[in-house]
């Protein structure tokens, strides 16, 4: 059964909300919201269904968090956005917040933010004021995990925070220079979780940390199953195991297993989608061969099938970034991608076919699908 969906779209030049009908057939745009603001992430709180947070900055000004507590009718700026403490021993200041994560269901009002340079911040008041999480930000190894010269073309980032739905104390981080980090005490202590994850760009190809974890997802029906799209391949880890398995080895050789994101099925622990990006030679990070496609596994990564019906069959050089591929929870499940060329495409049949629902937007950074309020 399907239902009306809202897509929260963050772009390099502002934010938009796309609203569908119950069949997800017709879409209407609202926006631009905050035209000119660089919106890295735009998220709704699943616990109350009406708090919206936006990680924003501009080309000139420092970063902030924009908040709505009434589903987007009115907006205000966070009173104290994420920032390192004054006098930080490493001299850090937040360039931009990259990822916003609602806290555990048992902790209403708690939010987490990941930033560039890598830093973790916590709010206990619905995103209005933020505190530095010193267990990570002042960890004795913080400069090993996040060397000042490390990072992506847009800077070093703590690019993702994942909270175990069974235990508010258990969290994972995905980072661009320390791979995956895990805490079991809600951020007081951390340890790397990267065994058998390859690092093509370091002398030791299997270090304890140093990996670039692009995206991490827990299977919604089995939070012990972790899916990871890494800079160097697609991986899966079933906890309490510690050793990641490179399930991307089963991808077609000519496509490879490089990409930015991975989307698990909301009801099936063995199903997930990836969006492959060309990782050859100069790392163009475009659809391999100019032929856009998602790839789906239905057996935990043992095999993958191509899903490209509806996409351009030639000269389609899509780039889909970390937060710009998502699913809804409908049956059949809907999938959504946002491209750096400003297009949104959707599938209403679990990837079997795709159609464009928006074009001509600025470079898309994030797409989040939520049920209509």
């Amino acid at each position, binding site marked *: 059964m399907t239902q009306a969906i809202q897509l929260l779209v963050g772009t390099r030049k502002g934010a938009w909300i796309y609203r569908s009908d119950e069949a997800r057939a017709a879409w209407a745009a609202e926006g631009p919201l905050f035209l000119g603001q660089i919106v890295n992430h735009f998220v709704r709180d699943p616990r109350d269904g009406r708090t919206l947070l936006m990680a924003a900055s501009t080309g000139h000004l420092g970063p*902030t968090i924009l908040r709505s507590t009434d589903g987007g009718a009115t907006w205000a700026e966070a009173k104290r956005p994420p920032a*390192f403490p004054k006098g930080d021993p490493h001299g850090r200041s937040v360039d931009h917040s990259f990822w916003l994560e609602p806290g555990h269901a048992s902790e209403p009002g708690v939010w987490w933010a990941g930033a560039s340079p890598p830093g973790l911040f916590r709010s206990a008041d619905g995103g209005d004021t933020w505190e530095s999480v010193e267990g990570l930000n002042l960890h004795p190894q913080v400069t090993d995990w996040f060397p000042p010269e490390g990072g992506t073309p847009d800077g070093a980032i703590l690019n993702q925070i994942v909270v175990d739905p069974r235990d508010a104390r258990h969290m994972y981080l995905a980072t661009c220079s320390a791979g995956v980090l895990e805490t079991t005490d809600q951020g007081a202590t951390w340890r790397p979780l990267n065994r058998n994850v390859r690092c093509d760009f370091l002398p030791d190809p299997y270090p304890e940390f140093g990996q670039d974890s692009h995206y991490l997802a827990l299977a919604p029906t089995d939070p012990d199953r972790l899916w990871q799209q890494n800079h160097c391949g697609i991986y899966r880890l079933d906890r309490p195991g510690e050793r990641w398995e490179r399930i991307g080895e089963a991808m077609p050789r000519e496509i490879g297993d490089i990409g930015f994101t991975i989307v698990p099925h909301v009801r099936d622990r063995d199903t997930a989608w990836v969006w492959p990006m060309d990782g050859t030679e100069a790392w163009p990070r475009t659809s391999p061969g100019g032929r856009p496609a998602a790839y789906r596994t239905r057996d935990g990564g043992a095999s993958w099938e191509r899903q490209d019906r509806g996409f351009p069959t030639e000269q389609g050089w899509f780039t889909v970034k970390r937060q710009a591929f998502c699913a809804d929870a409908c049956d059949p499940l809907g999938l959504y991608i946002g491209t750096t060329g400003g297009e949104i495409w959707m599938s209403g049949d679990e990837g079997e076919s795709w159609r464009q629902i928006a074009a001509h937007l600025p470079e898309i950074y994030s797409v989040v699908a939520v049920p209509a309020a």
Partner: protein
Amino acid sequence: MIRVSIPSQLIAYTDGATRVEAEGASVGAVLDDLDRRHPGLKFRVVDEQDRIRRHVRIFIGQEEARATNEPVPPGGELLIFGALSGG
């Protein structure tokens, strides 16, 4: 009282005003007072380590300020600009 010129990127904080007034004997003090009058403005201009942000330029009269501890003379003027950053 210091006269302050506000760039377009910050007029959302000043109800659209491009010219406002604030008190203070240094760049940082003027920005602190501006932030009291227009909450949130300072953090968009100066980071948490009191560094002027990379794409913001602040002038005391005709002279560019490089740090927030530079003095502002009584009755002087502070001009805030968005530096070259766009596209």
